[in-house]
């Protein structure tokens, strides 16, 4: 079956440090992956995505790495700030029986940034 999971449920870092959040996926047919950030009381917000034909993609202070060999995804946040404190979800795209695409979400990692 398909599943998306996370290695660490919680992560605590010091302000200014780099953060790395990991995610494992099991569906080798997935070709699209997304990281979402969810602040308390809010809906998930898109951070960065990557297609399976890439192994790295950079955004503003964030980098996503994809290792298809071991089915592993990571999110790197540079110079972590207090505003980065949130729960981070990875999601993979899978096709429904009807042929449309839907996202399968992992459980999430709670990132706490200490001042």
């Amino acid at each position: 079956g398909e599943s998306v999971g996370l290695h660490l449920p919680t992560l605590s870092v010091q302000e200014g440090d780099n953060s790395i959040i990991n995610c494992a996926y099991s569906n080798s047919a997935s070709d699209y992956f997304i990281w979402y950030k969810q602040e308390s009381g809010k809906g998930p917000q898109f951070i960065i995505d990557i297609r399976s034909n890439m192994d790295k993609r950079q955004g503003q202070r964030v980098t996503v790495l994809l290792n298809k060999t071991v089915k592993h995804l990571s999110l790197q946040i540079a110079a972590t700030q207090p505003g980065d404190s949130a729960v981070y979800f990875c999601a993979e795209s899978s096709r429904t029986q009807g042929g449309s695409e839907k996202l399968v979400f992992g459980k999430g990692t709670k990132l706490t940034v200490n001042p």
Partner: protein
Amino acid sequence: NAGVTQTPKFRILKIGQSMTLQCTQDMNHNYMYWYRQDPGMGLKLIYYSVGAGITDKGEVPNGYNVSRSTTEDFPLRLELAAPSQTSVYFCASSYRVEGYTFGSGTRLTVV
């Protein structure tokens, strides 16, 4: 654009009551979804729709019903509320999977 709007934001139901969670989007997205998020957990897909008049079950559809009479609206119906349905419900819409936009959620408590 308002994006995806969910109402109400909070609701307390008694066991056996019914209610409809409203979701509307103004982005002309074909795809709409309902997820539930239990404490400390990820999002689980309840129902989804690929266009007006078309709906299909997700991972956890039992106890829920949906309809999609227009592109903009995708209400979620709970007919006989149970404590197991206490959760935060998120509606989302997308053009393709790349363009997922989530609403701010409805926090439902069944007592």
